[in-house]
């Protein structure tokens, strides 16, 4: 089934005409036969890392395809993320890992396939406002942290709050900023400019800026790239503590095996736009496949 993603702004779309999956909203998320009955065919192992079989996956991707001109980056990716789980996606450069998570938040439009995030289909017919509702519940840590370089650390964290929590008092906002910075271990950097921060510090602030809106899902795009081993370990530990404190589910794109070993509940390996292996770190480490083994040595 060909299904082009198409996000339109609220002002461009008649809200009444937006096709919504109403049956999905009416269903009991636990007892109904989801996702098979939602048109997402295929068999999912709907088992969370905590072992609760009733939890539905927070992310489901089915048959995702994406091409840039003639170059097919994703060639039918199927995956799911259970609630509270950290799924690590491993793959070599150019295997489509970053494109995959960008499709999840609408930064890239999928050519084909279905994506469901937190029970909402974002594949088609989604208005800009509806997409933003999903984005508000999803945090994204960019590879280079993407801090707003014209703003101080305090302003970087205050900016999303000012935009989305307009009724929040200044005192409450300051308190939340201080708490969040404390959670990432950089309370003293509050008045610094991004240009003055090290790579590891930038990542922490980028994470804090995302966490300040309390997302349910975290997407990490190569969180430890460009960092030394010690800092990489610190960031991985921070990711684990974020998962515990904020009760987030997450997808981590990485090349860093230390990060993968420390943070992964489950690993998916992507090769030329297709999932070729899936399992725990330990099970994949024991694989006889030469390509898989090349990641573990």
């Amino acid at each position, binding site marked *: 089934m060909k299904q082009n993603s198409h996000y339109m702004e609220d002002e461009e779309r008649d809200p009444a005409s937006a096709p919504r999956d109403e049956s999905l909203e009416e269903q009991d998320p636990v007892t109904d036969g989801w996702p098979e009955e939602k048109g997402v065919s295929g068999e999912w192992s709907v088992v969370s890392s905590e072992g609760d079989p009733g939890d539905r996956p927070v992310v489901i991707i089915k048959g995702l395809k994406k091409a840039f001109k003639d170059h097919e980056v994703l060639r039918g990716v199927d995956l799911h993320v259970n609630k509270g789980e950290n799924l690590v996606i491993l793959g070599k450069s150019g295997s489509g890992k970053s494109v995959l998570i960008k499709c999840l938040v609408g930064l890239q439009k999928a050519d084909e396939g279905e994506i469901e995030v937190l029970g909402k289909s974002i594949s088609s017919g989604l208005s800009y406002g509806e997409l933003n509702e999903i*984005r508000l519940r999803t945090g*994204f840590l960019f*590879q280079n942290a993407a801090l707003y370089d014209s703003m101080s650390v305090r302003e970087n964290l205050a900016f999303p709050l000012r935009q989305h929590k307009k009724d929040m008092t200044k005192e409450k906002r300051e308190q939340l900023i201080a708490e969040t910075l404390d959670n990432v271990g950089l309370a003293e950097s509050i008045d610094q400019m991004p240009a003055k921060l090290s790579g590891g510090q930038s990542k922490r602030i980028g994470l804090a800026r995302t966490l300040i809106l309390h997302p349910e899902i975290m997407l990490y795009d190569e969180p430890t790239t460009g960092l030394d081993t010690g800092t990489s370990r610190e960031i991985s530990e921070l990711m684990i503590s974020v998962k515990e404190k904020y009760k987030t589910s997450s997808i981590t794109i990485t090349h860093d095996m230390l990060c993968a070993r420390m943070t992964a509940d489950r690993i998916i390996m992507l090769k030329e736009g297709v999932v070729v292996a899936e399992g725990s770190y330990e099970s994949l480490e024991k694989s006889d496949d030469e390509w898989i083994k090349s990641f573990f040595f």
Partner: protein
Amino acid sequence: MQPSLNPYQKTRIKITQKKSEFQKFFYEAGDMVVFTGRFFRTVFKPPFEWKEVLYQCYLVGYKSTFLIGLTGFIMGMVLTIQTRPSMASFGAISMIPGMISVSVVREIGPVITAIICAGNIGSRMGAELGSMKVTEQIDAMEVSAINPYRYLVVTRVLATTLMIPLLSVFADAIALTGGFVAMNIHDAMGFRRFFSVALAHLEFIDVFPAIIKTFFFGFTVGIIGCYKGYHVRGGTESVGKAANSAVISASLGVFVIDMLAAQLTDLFN
């Protein structure tokens, strides 16, 4: 070693290249129209980013006053000094203030202001948004459910649209002052006399269309600067190209609007 091509093949390749450049131009023009249309759809809908608009007005307006003032002053002086010999040969030195005021207010002030702003502000916007694009800051806004177009583009375009007319009026005033200084040095013409003659020659039809067209100049500089920055693809090299392209396109846009404005004014005259 490349195989040698016959003249027919060379011509064919050239035509294909020209065709693709031509197509690219029209694609970009179409994109630009869509980008501009989005401005009008967004600008009247809340939430309004007044604080950011004010900050951009400060950057565009206040931060450009020295440059605009200095250029205006030199422009007024040079215009007076250059026209003086010709006017003197007709014994029409007393007409110089009127001539200066009409040419400055109608044409030179608005155009020079817009061109300076295209270079100063258009390039800054192109480079700023371009670097935000390549460092994924615009994507970061998107994924935080913040509309980057509203926050970055609308505010900047509003600021240029509102500030360039003010800068233009400021440039006119300073250019006339420059003209007075030149006249005072050469002909000992007094301040009061200079300005009474200069203002007496100005009519509504000189001032009103000139001010109206500066709003269009401001809009053009802002929207082109933002468009070029917002559509940067690739790395840091493309940021430089975007800034450069913003200056060229915005300057060209200013001249085209000026030509249209001149035709329209002439029509109403």
